[in-house]
């Protein structure tokens, strides 16, 4: 990861939401780690995924602690539960006046509903609420589909998006063109939604191939943290 891809936000709280499987967790975890390398502030990452039973950011909790990031998620046996558990530290970190907070929200409007319970706390806080968009997912492959998803999430969360993250990918089959196609869709969605496209993310090795292209959207490099058991950290996804 290079400084080139560092994206900074003035807001203390950055919330990643979006459709199921848009890659929110991968983006949130990578973002938290990059922030930790560029900021002196204490950083917390909140796993607010109450709809997904596997591949949640809590699985990367130990790794994040090595970067000095505080993971906030259900503890003990509840780590492995598929229950809507909201630990008290979540509200405390939102209401706090200091420290950076990254929130990884569960997928779709169902996953975002939990945010509405923090509405009063968030209302007075400084936050970015980012829609993570993967154009290769069934319900967000068109501008209208993406806008409907955004509207459903906003209604459910009782928060309005402040920006879009283009995270279009096909895991190990992602090409530079995949990312460019995703940016094109995200730009069209951003125009219709009247909010900015804040960055486009992709795996290190694919983003590197876009370096010399004249792309107006800031690029954000990811290294895969949420691996399948048969994948080595060093390699990209092997397809069966």
């Amino acid at each position: 990861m290079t400084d080139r891809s560092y994206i900074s936000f003035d807001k203390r709280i950055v919330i990643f939401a979006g459709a199921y499987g848009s890659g929110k967790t991968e983006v949130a975890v990578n973002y938290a780690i990059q922030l930790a390398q560029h900021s002196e502030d204490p950083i917390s990452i909140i796993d607010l995924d109450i709809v997904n039973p596997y591949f949640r950011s809590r699985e990367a909790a130990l790794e994040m602690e090595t970067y000095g990031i505080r993971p906030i998620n259900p503890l003990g046996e509840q780590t492995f539960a598929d229950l809507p558990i909201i630990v008290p530290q979540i509200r405390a970190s939102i209401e706090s006046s200091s420290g950076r907070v990254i929130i990884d929200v569960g997928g779709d409007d169902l996953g975002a509903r939990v945010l509405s319970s923090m509405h009063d706390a968030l209302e007075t806080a400084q936050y970015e609420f980012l829609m993570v968009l993967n154009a290769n997912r069934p319900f967000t492959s068109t501008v209208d589909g993406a806008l409907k998803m955004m509207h459903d999430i906003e209604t459910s969360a009782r928060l309005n998006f402040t920006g879009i993250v283009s995270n279009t990918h096909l895991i190990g089959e992602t090409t530079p063109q995949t990312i460019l196609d995703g940016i094109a869709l995200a730009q069209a969605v951003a125009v219709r939604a009247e909010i900015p496209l804040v960055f486009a993310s992709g795996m290190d090795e694919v983003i590197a191939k876009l370096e010399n292209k004249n792309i107006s959207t800031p690029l954000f490099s990811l290294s895969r943290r949420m691996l399948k058991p048969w994948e080595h950290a060093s390699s990209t996804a092997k397809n069966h």
Partner: protein
Amino acid sequence: MTRILMKGNEAIAEAAIRAGGVHYFAYPITPQSEVGEYLAKRLPEVGGVFVQAESEVAVGNMLFGAASTGKRVFTSSSSPGVSLMQEAISYMAGAQLPVVIINIMRGGPGLGGILPAQSDYFQSTKGGGHGDYRLLVLAPASVQEAVDLTMLGFHLADKYRNPVLVIGDGMIGQMMEPVEFPDKYDEPALPAKDWAITGAKGRKPLITKSLFLDPYALEQNNIVIHAKYEQMKANEIRFELYKVSAKNRMLIVSYGTMARICQTVIDDLEREGVSIGLLRPISLWPFPEMQIRTEAAKPNIERVLTVEMSMGQMVEDVDKAVQGKKPVDFFGRTGGIVPAPEEVRERILKLLDGKMAK
């Protein structure tokens, strides 16, 4: 159609629709609930029906009734839910009804946990319900294979008039991979469903049942369904070989995502000069018994290792296949723990101890 990124559960749901399975009965349970969530959105678009039952017991009986009409019907669940359906599954096997059942397995016994497991092998292949019956059991190892086997499952259920079970560990349901769907599901012609209950106007009434009080009639029904099981053994054994060669010192038998972990280990060990081959059963019943026997008997094979996310279930069938000709070892983790490549590698090297290539 282009490649899209789907979670296994969603892909299975879409595959069922593509195969004409638009009558779905289910009750939610982790880690397969996305099948129902997806179908709740999609089935109304294709004129299908999703009935959420009050329990999996009811699901089983709804399947029995709906399958009797000759329509393509299916359900999905996870281990404890599938246990509740066993009575109806036995009834459907006895009544020769085609139905597809998806089991995205979680750790047991009992309520267990919600993480991946392969501990329903016995239940799936040995008859979880009562009576002399078999299910055709298919086990995918990737999201694409889950799509392909789900569609094939509908075909085979109709072909044999028998329930088909597609089983995947929780990882199959929860992980995302790129997939594609055929625009049209091409399948060989099937016999007319002259047994389907469609209204008796102009013909004699039909009865779908598994009750035969006359012992000769019941025995005859068993003979008929067992003749089909023999046909399945002749026609429906599916498996895949990975890096099987005359250099192999060991044969691994493993299925589902566990087999993919074994492939990673095999690739790693190959670089270190240790040659291992893998036989991955795709049909768990009928079981590739002869194929395992043939591979295990080759003179270069020192040992056979079965790797499962269970305390050791399929290993009994591997042991039976090998017929004592080679030592059969087992490695497994359970409770939802997915063995890491490193642990599998360590076990292999320990078993080949002292005879290492390097």
